[in-house]
C-alpha cells in the first residue's frame, strides 16, 4: 500500500490511493460496527438454534423450541373455535325464531353479521345494504323472493340464477330485442309501467299510449308481475308500483329493461359460507330491515 498523507480535518491518514481526486481515509472500522455485527450475529445464530432453520441433505434442523408454523396455525384455529363455541353451537342448533328472541345472541349476530355482510354482500348491495344500480336495495325494498326468515335463508344459500341445483331461477324476457313486441309497443309499455309508480307522468298527450301499454301489460306481463303489477314472490318478479327500482325507474331505464330483458345473479352462498354464517347473515339482514322500517315509520310520524 502506498504511503498516505494526513487529512488535516480528521487527523487520519489516507490510504494513499487516489481516484480522480477522491481519496480514502485509513480510519479503522468504528467499534460500534464490530459490536453490532457480533451482537446481531449472535442473535441471528441464537434464533436459528431456537427455530427450525439449517437444512441438511434429507431434512432440516427442527430448532430447540420445537416450533412449527403449521401446528401453530392449527392450534390458533382450535383456540378461536373454542372461544366462539359457546354461541356458535346455539346458532348452529337453534332455529331462526329462537335466535331472534334471544337478545344476547342477537347482539353477537349483529356484531359478526356486520363483518360478514361487509366482506361478502357489500360489494354488490352496498355497506348499508341499500343497493346500487343493478343490485337491489335489500335494506328497505320488498324482497323479490319473500321476506319470511326461512325464505331469505334459502335465497342466500341457493342464490339467484346461481350454480346451486336448487338455485332460484328468474328471467325477464327481452321483449324488444327478441321481437315479441315492436319498439313502439315497448315504448307504450314503458310509459304505462312508469305511470304505475308516478301518476304525474300521465299527460293528455300520452294518455292513449299509456292505455295501449296497459293492454300490453295485461297480455304480456301479468304472469310474472301479477295483475296488480305488485310482483309475485313465486317468480321473483318485482313490484312495479313502488319507488324501488333495481335497474333504474326512469322511463328510459324501464324501456331498456323491457327491450333487452334482465337476469340478475346472486352467487349460491351455500358453497362458500358455512350454514351458521348464512344464518348469521340472514338474521343480520332481517334485523337491519326491521330497524330501517322502524326509522322510516318514525320519520313519517
Amino acid at each position, binding site marked *: 500500500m502506498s504511503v498516505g498523507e494526513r487529512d488535516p480535518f480528521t487527523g487520519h491518514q489516507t490510504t494513499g490511493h487516489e481516484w480522480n481526486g477522491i481519496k*480514502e481515509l485509513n480510519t479503522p*472500522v468504528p467499534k460500534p460496527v464490530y459490536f*453490532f455485527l457480533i451482537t446481531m*450475529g449472535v442473535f441471528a445464530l441464537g*434464533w436459528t438454534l431456537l427455530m427450525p432453520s439449517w437444512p441438511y441433505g434429507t431434512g*432440516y434442523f427442527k430448532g430447540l423450541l420445537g416450533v412449527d408454523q403449521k401446528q401453530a396455525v392449527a392450534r390458533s384455529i382450535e383456540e378461536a373455535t373454542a372461544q366462539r363455541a359457546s354461541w356458535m353451537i346455539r346458532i348452529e342448533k337453534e332455529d331462526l325464531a329462537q335466535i331472534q328472541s334471544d337478545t344476547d345472541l342477537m347482539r353477537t349476530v349483529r356484531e359478526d353479521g356486520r*363483518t360478514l355482510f361487509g366482506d361478502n354482500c357489500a360489494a354488490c348491495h352496498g*355497506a348499508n345494504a341499500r343497493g346500487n344500480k343493478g343490485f337491489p336495495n335489500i335494506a328497505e325494498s320488498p324482497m323479490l323472493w319473500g321476506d319470511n326468515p326461512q325464505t331469505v335463508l334459502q335465497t342466500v344459500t341457493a342464490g339467484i340464477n346461481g350454480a346451486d341445483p336448487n338455485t332460484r331461477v328468474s328471467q325477464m324476457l327481452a321483449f324488444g330485442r327478441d321481437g315479441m313486441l315492436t319498439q313502439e309497443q315497448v315504448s307504450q309499455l314503458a310509459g304505462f309501467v312508469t305511470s304505475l309508480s308516478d301518476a304525474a307522468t300521465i299527460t293528455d298527450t300520452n294518455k292513449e299510449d299509456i292505455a295501449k301499454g296497459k293492454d300490453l301489460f295485461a297480455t304480456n306481463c301479468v304472469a310474472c308481475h301479477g295483475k296488480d303489477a305488485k310482483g309475485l314472490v313465486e317468480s321473483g318478479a318485482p313490484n312495479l308500483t313502488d319507488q324501488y327500482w333495481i335497474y333504474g325507474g326512469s322511463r328510459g331505464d324501464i324501456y331498456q329493461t323491457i327491450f333487452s330483458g334482465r337476469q340478475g345473479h346472486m352467487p349460491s352462498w351455500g358453497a362458500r359460507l358455512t350454514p351458521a354464517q348464512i344464518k348469521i347473515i340472514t338474521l343480520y339482514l332481517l334485523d337491519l330491515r326491521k330497524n330501517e322500517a322502524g326509522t322510516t315509520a318514525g320519520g313519517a310520524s
Partner: protein
Amino acid sequence: MISQLTGNERVLAALTFLILLCVGVAMAAAGRDDLIGTHGWIIAVSAIAGAVALLRAYDAPEPSATRLSEYYDDPSKVGIILTLIWGVIGMLVGVWVAALLAWPELTIDAAWASFGRLRPVHTSGVIFGFGGNALIATSFHVLQRTTRARLPDQFSPWFVLFGYNLFCVLAASGYLMGITQSKEYAEPEWYADIWLVVVWVVYFSIYIRTLLRRKEPHIYVANWYYMAFILVVALLHIINNLAVPISFGHAKSYSLFSGVQDAMTQWWYGHNAVAFFLTAGFLGMMYYYLPKRAGRPIYSYRTSIISFWGITFMYMWAGSHHLHYTALPHWVQSLGMAFSVVLLVPSWASAGNALLTLNGAWHKVRDDAVLRFMMLAAIFYGLATFEGSFMAIRAVNSLSHYTDWTIGHVHAGALGWVAMITYGSLYALTPWLWKRPALYSAKLVEWHFWLALSGTVVYVFAMWNSGVIQGLMWRTYNDSGTLSYSFVDSLVAMHPYYIARAFGGLLFLSGAVIALYNIVMTIRSPVAVASESASDIPLGLEPAAPIAQAGE
C-alpha cells in the same frame, strides 16, 4: 454519434441493425395473430430508425485519433436525458395510479387504463427506466474517471444504452397491451428477457474490458458496487425468467418453476433486485459523487470493505422474508429473517461511512442543495434499511405484510434514497459533462430539494399510518371472537391516506419536472468553461500531472 464510430464499428452497427430488423420482422410474421407481432414491429421500426441514422452519416470521416486522449462521455450525456424523461413518465403514472386508488371512478373505460396494467408501467418506469438509465449513465462516467481509461470502444456503450431502452419500451408497451408473466418487477415476457440478457452481457464486458486497461492500481469501491450490480442482476434475471414460451409466435410463456418454488425464486429475485439494482448500483453512485461534491476523502476505506462484503453476502439470503407465514417451509423463513436482521449492520455502516465523509464539509451541505440531496439520500438509506430489517422479523411482518406499510417502506427507499442520490449525482454531473460553470438555476435545485423532501415525507407518513391501521383492523377481534372489521371498513379507513399519498407523489413529480427543465436549460445555456478538473483525461496519454483536488 454515428460520426464518432470507427469504420469497423459502423459495419458492426449495420450488422446489428440488420439482425434486429430480421428478428423484428420474423416476430411480426410469426406473431401476426398475437400481441408479440406488435412488439416485432416495434423492434423492426427501431432497427430501421437506427439504420437510417447510420446511413445518413455513414460516409462521415473517421473520428480522429485524438479522441483516445479523452473520456467517452456522449453515452452518459444521452443517458442523463433519458433518465430524467423516464423519471417524469414513471412518476406521472405513479401519481395516476395513486389517484385511481383514492378515486377509483376517475378512470376511462379502456383495458390499457386499468390499474393492473398501469401499475407495472409505474414500477418498471421508475426502477428500470429512471433507475436503470441513471446507473448506466453514471457507471460509464465513474468507470472511466476511476480507472483513468477510456471506454473500450464507441459502439458497445451505445448498444447498451439504446438496447436497454428498447427493453424498457417493450416492457411498458407490453403491460399496456396486457403482456405480462405476472412476476413482480419481472413482468416482461421471454423475448424481452432474452434481449435484456444480450444487452447485459455487453454491459458487463464494457466494465471488464475497461477495468483490464485501467491505469490505477486499485479498483475504486464505486466500481465494486457497480460490478456487483451488473453481475448479480444478470444472475437474478436469468434464473427468475427461465420459462418455456408456448411457441415462438406467442408472447405467453410458462415459468420453469411452480408453486412455492416459484414464489421463492421470484422473491429471491425480487429482494435482490432491491439489493443489487436499487442499493448496490446506487451505492456505487454515492461513493463517487458524494465525496467528489463534498471535496472530502471517504471516511473509512476499511468500513467500505466490510460493508460491501456484508451487503453482497447477506442480501442473497434475505428474500424468503417476503414469504413469512406462507406455504414456504418454516426453516427457510427463519434463515431469511436471521440474515435480514444482521444485514442492518453493513447497511448502516455504509450510510454512516457516507455521512461521516461529510465531516468537514457540513457548511457545504447547508449551502449546496446538490450535496444536501446526497446527504439526505444517505439518511433515507439508513432509515429504509432499518425498517427493512425490522419488517423482516416474523412477528412484525405478521402485522405489516400485505399492508400499505410495505408500500411506504419501498417508497422511503425509492424516493428518499434512490431518487435523491440520483438527482444529487445528476445535478453534480451535468455541469461537469457539458462543461458549464454551474447549473442553470441553483434556486430551482432548492425548490426541487424541498419538493422532493416534503413529497417523500408526506408519502411515507401516509403509508405508515394507513398500513398500521390496516394491519390492526385486519387482526382486531370483537368479544364474540369474530373479526371486528370487514375489508371494506379498512378501505374506508385508508381513503384519507390515499389522498395524502397521491398529493405526496404529486409534490415529488413536480420536483422531477423541475429537474428535467433545469438540466435541459443548463445544457442549452451556451457558456463553456474548463472541464471537470485538470485530471479529467485518461492517464497514460498525458504526462502524469500532479493531481489537483477536483473542482466542482
